[in-house]
């Protein structure tokens, strides 16, 4: 028996966690170190690439003055915020209705939504390309704002359905008995109680939109309408030539909004993941 001695704790907790932490965090460390290196240091193979001797902000400066990075960040923010709001509005209504209203097939629709969410975007991107071309929306941010809800709505609805089911329905029934309408019961009682769930859904929807790559890659060809994931991987890489300094600086900056949201709302993220709605 190992027991709860120091050695036992080390084997069970500290060693596995330390190994996991090192592997998890190493890429982040690598990004940070690389982004602060000068051009000469980046290609000086005689020194260790794991450390930086003369830190410089040159790549960050370069990113803001020589590339369209600020524009990409703006585009990404607009698309992520608008598509999150649209999806959230639809999903709150759909999730509430599926969790509460007793109509025929509500359960099977609920499962249908889960299965829909599991439909990989790789099945949908070609027909959506067709639709976007018919609508003449190539190189238009609306192309992304309209297509992101195809994965955001099923995802948010599934997550919110779980949260609404967790709220005792007696509360709303009491309000209905007291003369409130169904809409009032939803707006005044269920939604305020579901705020943690709505926040979790919003955070994930924003993160998924911010990180989305496939649709943005196909629909956005003009440099000025690209999002960060597409702009960074297409314009800071030319064939075999990688602009590592700029790439890593852009990588760090491009993940700041998500990292900040995450650090403030880590509990909501975890609650959303535990609700079992997020693909990995």
């Amino acid at each position: 028996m190992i027991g709860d001695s120091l050695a036992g704790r080390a084997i069970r907790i500290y060693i596995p966690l330390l190994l996991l932490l090192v592997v998890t965090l190493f890429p982040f460390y690598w990004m940070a170190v690389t982004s602060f290196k000068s051009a000469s240091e980046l290609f000086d193979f005689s020194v260790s690439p794991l450390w930086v001797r003369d830190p410089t902000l040159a790549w960050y400066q370069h990113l803001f003055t020589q590339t369209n990075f600020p524009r990409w960040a703006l585009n990404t923010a607009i698309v992520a915020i608008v598509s999150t709001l649209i999806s959230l509005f639809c999903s709150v209504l759909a999730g509430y209705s599926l969790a509460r209203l007793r109509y025929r097939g509500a359960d099977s629709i609920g499962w249908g939504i889960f299965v829909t969410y599991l439909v990989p975007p790789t099945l949908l991107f070609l027909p959506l390309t067709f639709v976007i071309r018919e609508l003449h929306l190539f190189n238009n941010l609306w192309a992304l704002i309209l297509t992101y809800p195809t994965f955001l709505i099923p995802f948010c609805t599934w997550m919110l359905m779980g949260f609404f089911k967790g709220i005792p329905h007696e509360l709303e029934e009491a309000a209905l008995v007291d003369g409130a309408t169904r809409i009032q019961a939803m707006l005044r009682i269920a939604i305020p109680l579901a705020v943690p769930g709505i926040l979790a859904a919003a955070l994930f929807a924003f993160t998924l939109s911010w990180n989305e790559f496939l649709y943005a890659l196909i629909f956005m060809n003009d440099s000025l309408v690209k999002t960060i994931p597409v702009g960074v991987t297409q314009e800071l890489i030319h064939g075999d030539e990688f602009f590592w300094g700029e790439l890593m600086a852009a990588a760090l900056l491009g993940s700041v909004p998500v990292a900040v949201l995450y650090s403030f709302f880590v509990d909501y993220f975890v609650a959303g993941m535990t609700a079992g709605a997020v693909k990995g």
Partner: protein
Amino acid sequence: MIGVIAYPLGLAVWLSFTDAQVGESGHFIGLGNYDYLFHQSSYADALRNTAVYTTASTLIKAGLGLLMALALARTFPCRRLVYALLFLPFVFPIVIGTVAWYYLFSSVNGGINYLLVHAHLVSDSIAWLGVGPLPMASLITVNVWHGTALFGVLLLAALRSVPADILDAAVIDGARPLRRFTDVVLPYLSSALALGAVLSVGGTFGDFAIVHLLTGGGPANETTIVSTMAFQIALRDGALGVGTATALSIIPVYLVALVFVVRVAGRK
């Protein structure tokens, strides 16, 4: 809601039966695209790679996620910080994470090779994205890095649901730690494992970014998965019909995989 998914899906089925090219609608040609596809050796490669990529990633993520959950279920200093850091890759933009890994894998001054060479574990840089089984292993590594936290969170929540008195009873009855784990704890984890596996299979089956950026399906189709193959046929070569057929052809496989996962993980 239904229009959002059903319409594109219906359109996809239609497109897969036509000889549509990028920019023109095409004519109905029945099962011609599927027939063409099933006679391509690259299609068999893509199916095999998708299966390997999905299965290996999901199994490794489940194993590491269980390790993570078991460790995090204990109390220790800085637990919340460790918890937050371990789950960071899951919400981190995967495109950006993949680019960082690409540089880490690099043969020229890449971080991993530097460490290995200077620790005298290898004498020459390893071509992680070169030939043989290594490129696929690299893809799986990035996928696991990204997705292990999902299993970690789900399994941690499930571990918390194991009633303490049942565990105590098992201790009193003299059950050894391993026995306690397999017979008492594991049944409580089965639904979390099933859910994690379904979500992981869904996410990995549909993955595009990691493969597209890290290897582009190369070298010589050795890491092509169905999604990158559909992308290349439809948008590089312009054969929209064949590309759509490629994407749709995996639906039956995908459904079988999901049912299988739910059965297996649900039984444990």
